[in-house]
C-alpha cells in the first residue's frame, strides 16, 4: 500500500518547481522591452533551476522504498464551498517525477536551442515568456493532486500553445492555425470539465486519492461515462482521432515550439491523463476498449499523413500523432500497457524533440524552407545535424539498441498479450513508420541536390547543435538505461500498476517479426526516394496520398459536422430574434385569436414585437407551469 508523505526536505521545494518558470514568465511579460537583453537568459535560468530541483527530488525519491515515494504538498486551500473542497495541492510520485524531468530537462535544452533559433526575432523576449508560461502550466498539470487543479494546468498549456502557434501573427495561416487549435481543444476541454463534475458528484471529491480509493463503489455505467469523457479530453489535447486536425496546422509555430509542446510534452498530456486515471479505466472495460480503438485509428492516420506530406514539419507532426497513438493504444490495454505507454512517451519525448530540432536546424540552413522536395544531399553540408537526426531516425523506427526499439517493442508485445490481431496491426504500423521516416531522411540528406538557387546550406551554430547532440545521445541510450538500469516498469508500478501475461509465442519471435517488417518498410522508402530521383513538383499520387495531403479530410469533416451547422443556426436565430412577430404569431395564434391577422398586416415595429415576444414567452411559461402543476 502506498503511503502518502508530507513534503519535507527537498520535497518542500515542490511549489518552487512551478513558481520559478511562472515568475520568469511574469517578469518577462510585465518587464516589457527593458528585459529584452537579459530576459531570455532569465527564462533559461528558471527552467534550468527547476530541472536541478527535479533531479535532486529524483535522487531523494530513489533513496526511499517504493511505498514511500508519494509526496503531497498543500500550498493553500483554493475553493472550499460546502461539500465541494479543492486544495491547491501538489503531488509528486513516480509518475509525475518522470514527467517533471522530461519537461524540465528537454525543456531546458529546447530553451537553449531557441536562443540560437530565435536570435534575430524582434519578439524573442515574448517568445521566452510564453515558453516559460507553458513550462509552468505543464508542471502544474502533472503535479496537481486533483482533477480541478489538473484542469487549470490543462487550460494553461492550451493557452500557451495557442499563443505560441500564433506567435508569428503576421502570417495569417499562423493566426488561423492558432484559432483552430484553440477551438478543437475547447471541444476536448468540455469533455474534461463535464468529467470532473461527474467525478465530483459520484465520489464527492476530486482528489486522486479519494477518487481512486472509491472506484469500487461506483457503478460501471458512470465510470464508463467518466472514462469516455476523459478520453474525449485526451483526444483533444493529444491530437487523437477524431480531434486530430489541429496538430498539423500547429506546425505554423516556431520549430522549438513544435519540438517542446507539439511533440515532447503537451500533446502527451492526454496519455498522462489516461495513465493517471488508470483506476477508472481498469473498472470501465468499455471505456478502455474505446481508448484502444482511438489509439489504433490514430496510429494509422498519423502514419499515412506522415507518408504523404512534403513539408518536413508536417510529416513529423503526422509521425507524432501516430506515436502518441501508440501510447494511447498502450494505455488502453490496461495494466499490461500503462507502464509502456509512459516508457514510450519518455523515449519519444527525447527522440522526437531531437528530430524536430534537427528539422529546425535544416530549415535554419535552408532559409526556412520546409519543402523536402527542395532538400537533398545535405548529409555532407550539415554533418552534426545529419548524425544526430540519424540517431533520432533509428530510434523512432525501432532499430536496436536505439531507445525507440525498446519502448515500441514492449508496446507491441503487450498488444499480443491482449489480442493477436491488434498486435499484428501495431506491427504493420511500425512498418509504415519505417517507410515514412526513411522517406524523410532520404529526401533530406541523401539523393541529389534540389536546392533553390539562392539557398546556401550551412551547419547551425553551436548553441543549436549542442542540444541536438545531447538529445541524440538520449535517443541512443535512454531506452536501455530506463529499462535495464531504471527498471521503468517496476518504478511506475506502484502508481499505474503492472502485470504481464504470457503470449502464445516466445518473445523473440515478435521482436524478429517487427524488425523484419520495419526493415521492409525502410527498404521500400529507400528504394523509392533515395535510389530514384525525387521530382521537385509533387506527383499527383494515388487516392490515398491525395487524401493524406488533405490531412485525410479532417478539416472538411469538421466543417460539415460542426462549423456549418453552428453558423447556420446562428443565422437562423438572428433572423428569429428580429422577426419574432412572424415566429410568435403562429405560436400564440390560439391565444390571441384573430389578432394574428391584424399583426401580420400591420407594419412590423420592433418595440412592439419585443412586447409580443414577452407576452408570448409569458404565456408559454405559464402554460408550462400549469402543466407541471397538473401532472
Amino acid at each position, binding site marked *: 500500500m502506498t503511503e502518502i508523505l508530507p513534503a519535507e526536505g527537498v520535497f518542500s521545494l515542490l511549489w518552487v518547481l512551478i513558481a520559478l518558470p511562472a515568475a520568469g514568465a511574469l517578469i518577462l511579460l510585465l518587464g516589457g522591452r527593458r528585459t529584452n537583453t537579459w530576459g531570455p537568459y532569465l527564462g533559461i535560468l528558471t527552467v534550468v533551476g527547476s530541472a536541478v530541483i527535479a533531479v535532486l527530488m529524483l535522487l531523494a525519491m530513489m533513496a526511499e522504498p517504493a511505498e514511500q515515494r508519494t509526496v503531497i504538498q498543500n500550498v493553500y486551500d483554493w475553493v472550499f464551498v460546502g461539500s465541494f473542497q479543492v486544495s491547491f495541492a501538489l503531488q509528486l510520485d513516480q509518475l509525475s517525477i518522470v514527467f517533471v524531468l522530461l519537461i524540465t530537462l528537454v525543456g531546458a535544452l529546447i530553451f537553449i536551442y531557441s536562443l540560437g533559433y530565435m536570435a534575430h526575432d524582434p519578439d524573442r523576449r515574448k517568445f521566452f515568456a510564453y515558453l516559460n508560461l507553458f513550462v509552468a502550466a505543464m508542471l502544474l498539470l502533472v503535479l496537481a493532486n486533483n482533477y480541478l487543479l489538473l484542469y487549470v494546468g490543462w487550460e494553461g498549456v492550451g493557452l500557451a500553445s495557442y499563443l505560441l502557434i500564433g506567435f508569428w501573427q503576421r502570417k495569417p495561416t499562423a493566426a488561423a492555425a492558432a484559432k483552430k487549435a484553440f477551438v478543437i481543444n475547447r471541444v476536448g476541454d468540455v469533455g474534461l470539465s463535464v468529467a470532473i463534475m461527474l467525478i465530483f458528484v459520484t465520489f464527492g471529491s476530486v482528489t486522486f486519492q479519494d477518487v481512486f480509493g472509491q472506484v469500487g463503489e461506483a457503478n460501471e455505467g458512470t465510470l464508463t461515462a467518466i472514462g469516455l469523457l476523459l478520453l474525449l479530453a485526451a483526444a483533444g489535447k493529444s491530437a487523437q482521432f477524431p480531434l486530430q486536425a489541429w496538430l498539423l496546422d500547429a506546425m505554423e509555430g516556431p520549430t522549438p515550439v513544435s519540438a517542446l509542446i507539439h511533440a515532447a510534452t503537451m500533446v502527451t498530456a492526454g496519455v498522462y491523463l489516461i495513465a493517471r486515471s488508470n483506476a477508472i479505466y481498469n473498472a470501465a472495460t468499455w471505456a478502455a476498449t474505446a481508448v484502444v480503438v482511438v489509439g489504433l485509428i490514430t496510429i494509422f492516420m498519423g502514419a499515412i499523413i506522415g507518408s504523404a506530406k512534403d513539408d518536413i514539419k508536417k510529416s513529423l507532426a503526422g509521425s507524432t500523432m501516430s506515436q502518441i497513438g501508440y501510447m494511447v493504444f498502450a494505455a488502453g490495454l490496461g495494466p499490461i500497457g500503462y507502464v509502456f505507454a509512459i516508457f514510450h512517451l519518455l523515449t519519444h519525448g527525447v527522440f522526437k524533440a531531437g528530430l524536430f530540432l534537427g528539422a529546425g536546424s535544416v530549415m535554419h540552413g535552408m532559409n526556412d524552407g520546409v519543402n523536402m522536395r527542395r532538400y537533398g544531399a545535405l548529409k555532407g553540408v550539415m554533418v552534426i545535424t545529419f548524425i544526430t537526426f540519424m540517431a533520432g531516425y533509428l530510434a523512432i523506427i525501432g532499430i536496436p539498441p536505439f531507445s525507440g526499439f525498446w519502448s515500441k517493442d514492449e508496446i507491441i508485445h503487450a498488444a499480443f498479450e491482449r489480442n493477436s490481431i491488434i498486435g499484428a496491426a501495431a506491427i504493420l504500423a511500425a512498418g509504415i513508420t519505417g517507410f515514412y521516416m526513411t522517406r524523410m531522411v532520404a529526401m533530406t540528406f541523401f539523393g541529389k541536390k534540389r536546392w533553390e538557387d539562392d539557398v546556401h546550406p550551412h551547419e547551425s551554430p553551436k548553441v543549436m547543435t549542442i542540444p541536438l547532440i545531447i538529445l541524440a545521445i538520449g535517443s541512443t541510450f535512454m531506452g536501455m538505461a530506463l529499462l535495464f538500469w531504471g527498471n521503468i516498469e517496476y518504478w511506475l508500478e506502484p502508481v499505474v500498476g503492472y502485470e504481464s501475461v504470457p503470449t502464445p509465442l516466445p518473445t523473440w519471435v515478435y521482436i524478429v517479426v517487427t524488425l523484419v517488417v520495419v526493415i521492409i518498410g525502410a527498404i521500400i522508402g529507400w528504394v523509392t526516394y533515395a535510389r530514384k530521383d525525387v521530382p521537385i513538383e509533387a506527383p499527383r499520387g494515388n487516392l490515398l496520398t491525395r487524401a493524406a495531403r488533405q490531412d485525410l479530410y479532417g478539416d472538411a469533416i469538421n466543417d460539415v459536422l460542426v462549423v456549418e451547422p453552428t453558423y447556420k443556426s446562428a443565422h437562423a436565430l*438572428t433572423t428569429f430574434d*428580429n422577426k419574432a412577430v412572424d415566429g410568435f404569431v403562429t405560436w400564440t395564434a390560439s391565444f390571441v385569436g384573430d389578432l394574428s391577422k391584424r399583426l401580420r398586416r400591420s*407594419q412590423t415595429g*420592433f*418595440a412592439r414585437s419585443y412586447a409580443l415576444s414577452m407576452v408570448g414567452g409569458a404565456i408559454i411559461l405559464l402554460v408550462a407551469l400549469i402543466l407541471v402543476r397538473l401532472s
Partner: protein
Amino acid sequence: MNPANYILLSALLFSIGAIGVLVRRNAIIVFMSVELMLNSANLAFVAFARMNGNLDGQVVAFFVMVVAAAEVVVGLAIIVTIFRTRRSASIDEPNLLKY
C-alpha cells in the same frame, strides 16, 4: 355582488391593456395601455382586499397610483423627446437598433 366578478373584470382590463400595447402604434396610447394594466392590478388588489378581509391590498393600490404618476412623468419626458426628434410618436419608427 360577488367580489369574484371584480377579479374577472380586472383580468379583462389587463388583457385589453396588454393587447393595446401589442397592437397600438402611438407611443402615448401604448403607454396608456400599460397604465390600464397597472390599474387593472389595482382593481384586483382592492377586490382581493375585500375578499381577504385585510387592508394590505388597498394600501398597495395607493402606492401603485403614486408610482404610476412618477412613471408618467418619466415616460412622457422620453416620449416627448422622441417626438421632437422624429416628428412622430409612432413606436414603430425608431428602429435603428436591431439584429
